[in-house]
C-alpha cells in the first residue's frame, strides 16, 4: 500500500497526543489532541474528545473539542460535534448535530464595507432609495444588537458524547485542553485559540 492510513479500531482507546502526516480513521476513541497534515475521518461509532488540527475532517461520529482545519470540515448527517470550528470550508448537512462557533475566516464584512466606498448612510427620500440599492451591496454597519457575540464557548452539553460513548466522562463538559499538554483526560478548557 502506497497510501499510508492509520485506523483506530472500534475497540481501541487512544489517550494523549496523536500526530502524523497520513490519513487517520477513527472508529474507536481518541482523547487528547490530534494533529495531522492529512484527513481525519471519524466514522460512525467513533468518538474523539480532542482539539483537532488537520487539513480536512469528515465527521460521522462524535467530536467534542475544537477543530481547526486548513481546508475543510464536513459534518455528515450522522455526525455530532460540540466545539468551535475554524476552517475556510465548513459543510453542515441536514441531520448533522452541531453546537459551537463557526469561523470561515475569509469573510470579513467590515473589510468589505470599508472597501466599498459609495455606501453612505441610506438616503431617506423614496426616489433616491431605489437607485441607492445596488445589486449586491456590501453590508454596512451593525444591527441593533451584537451579531457575533464574542461569548466563550458555552460549556457544551455532554450529551452527544455521553449518548454514544460508554465512557464519556460525565460531568466533564468542556472540550479537552489545547494540544501540547494532554494527559488523556479532558480538563475544562475554554477556547483553544
Amino acid at each position, binding site marked *: 500500500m502506497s497510501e499510508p492510513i492509520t485506523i483506530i479500531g472500534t475497540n481501541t482507546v487512544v489517550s494523549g497526543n496523536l500526530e502524523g502526516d497520513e490519513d487517520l480513521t477513527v472508529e474507536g476513541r481518541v482523547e487528547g489532541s490530534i494533529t495531522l497534515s492529512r484527513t481525519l475521518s471519524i466514522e460512525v461509532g467513533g468518538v474523539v474528545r480532542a482539539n483537532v488540527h488537520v487539513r480536512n475532517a469528515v465527521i460521522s461520529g462524535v467530536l467534542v473539542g475544537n477543530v481547526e482545519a486548513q481546508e475543510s470540515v464536513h459534518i455528515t448527517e450522522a455526525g455530532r460535534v460540540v466545539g468551535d470550528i475554524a476552517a475556510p470550508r465548513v459543510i453542515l448537512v441536514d441531520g*448533522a448535530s452541531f453546537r459551537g462557533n463557526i469561523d470561515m475566516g475569509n469573510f470579513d464584512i467590515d473589510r468589505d464595507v470599508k472597501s466599498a466606498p459609495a455606501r453612505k448612510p441610506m438616503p431617506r427620500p423614496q426616489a433616491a432609495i431605489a437607485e441607492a440599492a445596488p445589486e449586491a451591496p456590501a453590508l454596512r454597519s451593525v444591527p*441593533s444588537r451584537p451579531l457575533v457575540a464574542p461569548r466563550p464557548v458555552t460549556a457544551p452539553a455532554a450529551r452527544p458524547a455521553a449518548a454514544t460513548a460508554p465512557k464519556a466522562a460525565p460531568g466533564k463538559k468542556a472540550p479537552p485542553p489545547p494540544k501540547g499538554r494532554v494527559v488523556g483526560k479532558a480538563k475544562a478548557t475554554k477556547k483553544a485559540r
Partner: protein
Amino acid sequence: MANTVIGSSIVIDGEISGEEDLVIQGTVKGRIMLKENIFVEQSGTVEADIETSNIEISGQVTGNIVASDKVEITAGGRAIGDIKAPRILIADGAIFKGNVDMDV
C-alpha cells in the same frame, strides 16, 4: 400563491412581520418576524434579526436568526450572526461566521 416579494431595487428599513412566504431580492434592515418561509435570493441583502420557521439564504444576511424549523445556507449564501434552529444546513461554498445552536 400568497407571497411577498421584495424586489431587487427596494430597500426596507424597519420591521417585516407576517404569515406568508417572503422572498427578498432587495435590501431589508431592521427586523423580520415571520411564521413561514423566507428566501433571501442572490441579490438579496438582509441586515436584521430574523425570527421565522424556515429560511434559505442565497444572498447575504447579517443578523441573528432564530428558526423553529430550518436554516439553510446555500453555496452562494453568506451569513454572519448567530443561528438557533433544530436543523441547520451549510452547503459547500457557503460562507458563515457565528454561533450555531441546534439545542443538542
